[in-house]
């Protein structure tokens, strides 16, 4: 589904990603871990199409199509979804209307009519129940004044509404209390199928207890320096990153 080949990206001439290779197949869960500032969020943003970052070398292929030229919204229409590490506050646009617009614009891009209002309501009800989100919440301005945990839960609500093919969850676990973590992880698991894939960016093992990865990658200085199975996450939790940094130097 997703193939990243020797990806280099920079911002204002500062190289951040320095040769990433990654392949994600349908049905897989990949975890990306790594020290602060190693480039995890940058990788996520580059995949999602943030124009601020310039791809200087390499390719991102989605179902064998190079997506370099595609705008962020076109990537979204093709099924890429990014759950933001820092969701943006948008005063004056309610969660519901934001989702209605997102869904209908996506349908429009596919040549479909707007979703009928009753169907939309049903979908909103279903997905908000899945994530145990209070309906009152949905009429509030998007992310404005939401607590850290509420913002993250709202990101996954959006994911549930949009049903992406490839979801990238950037530190969705940070800010969530234990109950919320379970609810959110449970939501993600319910959405998982053999046709879609998830990339989970996290610093902690505890999320991976719920969303069990097939592969774990360690990002360091803009490169994937180590990959392994789910046991690698346990090892990192125990030993930190120093041993990997040493390995890289050696």
């Amino acid at each position, binding site marked *: 589904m997703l193939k990243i080949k020797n990806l280099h990206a920079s911002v204002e001439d500062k190289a951040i990603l320095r040769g990433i290779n990654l392949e994600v197949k349908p049905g897989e869960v990949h975890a990306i871990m790594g020290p602060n500032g190693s480039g995890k969020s940058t990788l996520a943003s580059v995949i999602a199409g943030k124009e*601020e970052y310039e791809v200087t070398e390499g390719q991102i292929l989605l179902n064998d199509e190079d997506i370099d030229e595609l705008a962020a919204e076109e990537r979204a229409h093709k099924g890429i979804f990014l759950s*933001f590490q820092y969701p943006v506050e948008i005063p004056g646009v309610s969660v519901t209307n934001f989702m209605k617009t997102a869904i209908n614009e996506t349908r429009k*891009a596919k040549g479909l009519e707007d979703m009928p209002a009753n169907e939309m309501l049903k979908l909103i009800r279903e997905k908000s129940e899945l994530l145990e989100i209070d309906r009152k919440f949905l009429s509030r301005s998007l992310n404005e004044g939401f607590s850290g945990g509420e913002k993250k839960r709202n990101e996954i609500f959006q994911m549930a509404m949009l049903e992406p093919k490839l979801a990238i969850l950037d530190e969705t676990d940070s800010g969530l209390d234990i109950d919320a973590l379970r609810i959110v992880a449970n939501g993600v698991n319910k959405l998982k199928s053999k046709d879609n894939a998830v990339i989970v960016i996290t610093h902690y093992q505890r999320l991976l207890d719920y969303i069990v990865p097939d592969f774990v990658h360690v990002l360091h200085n803009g490169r994937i320096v180590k990959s392994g199975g789910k046991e690698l996450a346990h090892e990192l939790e125990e030993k930190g990153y120093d041993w990997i940094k040493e390995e890289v130097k050696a």
Partner: protein
Amino acid sequence: MELKEKLISSFLAFENHVDIDSPIHDVRSEAIKIFETQGFPTKKEEAWKYTSLNSILKHDYSVFPKNENTIEYNDVKKYFIHDIDSYKIVFIDGKYSSHLSQTTHDGIDVCLMSSALNKPKYQLIIQNYFNKIASKDSLTSLNTAFSQEGAYIQIPKNKVVDKPIQIIHFSTGNESALMQQPRNLIVVNENSHVQIIERHQSLTENPVLTNSVTEIFANKRAIIDYYKVQNDNEHASLIDNTFINQKQESHCSVHTFSFGGKLTRNNLNFYQNGERIDSTLKGVTIIGNKQHVDHNTLVHHIEPNCESHQDYKGIFNDSSTGVFNGKVVVNKEAQKTNAFQANNNILVSDKASINTKPQLEIFADDVKCSHGCTIGQLDENAMFYMRSRGIPEKEAKGLLMYAFSNNVLNSVKIPEIKQRITKIIATKLGVNIGFDL
């Protein structure tokens, strides 16, 4: 002949064809002298530094239209807020149009300035209120000199007016260029409540210049909500001079929606003459091409324990230009004043510009005054966030700009107006917002 000379010589003809014994004859004569001395304002004056009238003064305007014109309601229905019942005072090329209007004398007066000026039963009100708070600057004086027609609204005590009042001025283009000087007087007595909508609409590509003056008196505990819909075509210019005198515990709000016109200048002045008064001044400006909108506001806090809230948002596209000049004066006696002012702008194009200047003159020591002006582009992170959810750039921009102006719409009390403005904003921003955000 220069417009100024033409106006002065027309004045003599005008005074002959109105009543020389009129009680306001002296007021008019004095006013024309002020205009004669001062002339039209130029950029040399501080208050007009960023707004030049040159381009709109060059036309050969008719000052008195020769013919009475009519329009079919169906042709202009869309300019009315037509989905609610309302009183209507409608003018065509400056002349009252009885067939488009719906006035009343039943318990309240919703009628014409010309009757108020000419009929003896209104003489006392004219004596007490006419030209009492209008300033003596040149444009207001010019209007005073020619004041003859406009809306006259008088609400007695303890009356909640049952429906909004719409004041609409149409110009038809029967004159090759038309200058209008509407003059409105609105007196709302104790405990009464009224909602007013004002609109100027040109139906022609011929140049139109409107120099309007409105005096509003809010007596004790009166509530007045005033909506100015400025969505005229790009051949019409408007200089709106509004003066509001508030008494104790009255609440007045003016919302100004500026989406059209060639040049629009709003001189909006609030005078708080009493305690516990609340004044609200809000505006949304969305313009493009070479349009120009200038908001020049004054809130004068004269007595203690009063509030004022100013919130103006502007979105400027193409080569449009904006000005916000907000002056707040707090007298020494006006302790515990709470004055809030915000002016936020988005420049959508590199060629657009805005000059924004708060002016605070505070002579009291126990006051809360805040002001903030921002000029920015759209938030890139918000744009990426929305686009990453599948909302295309153009729609995302529209939604963000709509959301940006949303605060101002929150305080609109007539749902039909809110809806109408929402639609205009959506159209202006080129987005299909098929729902109330």
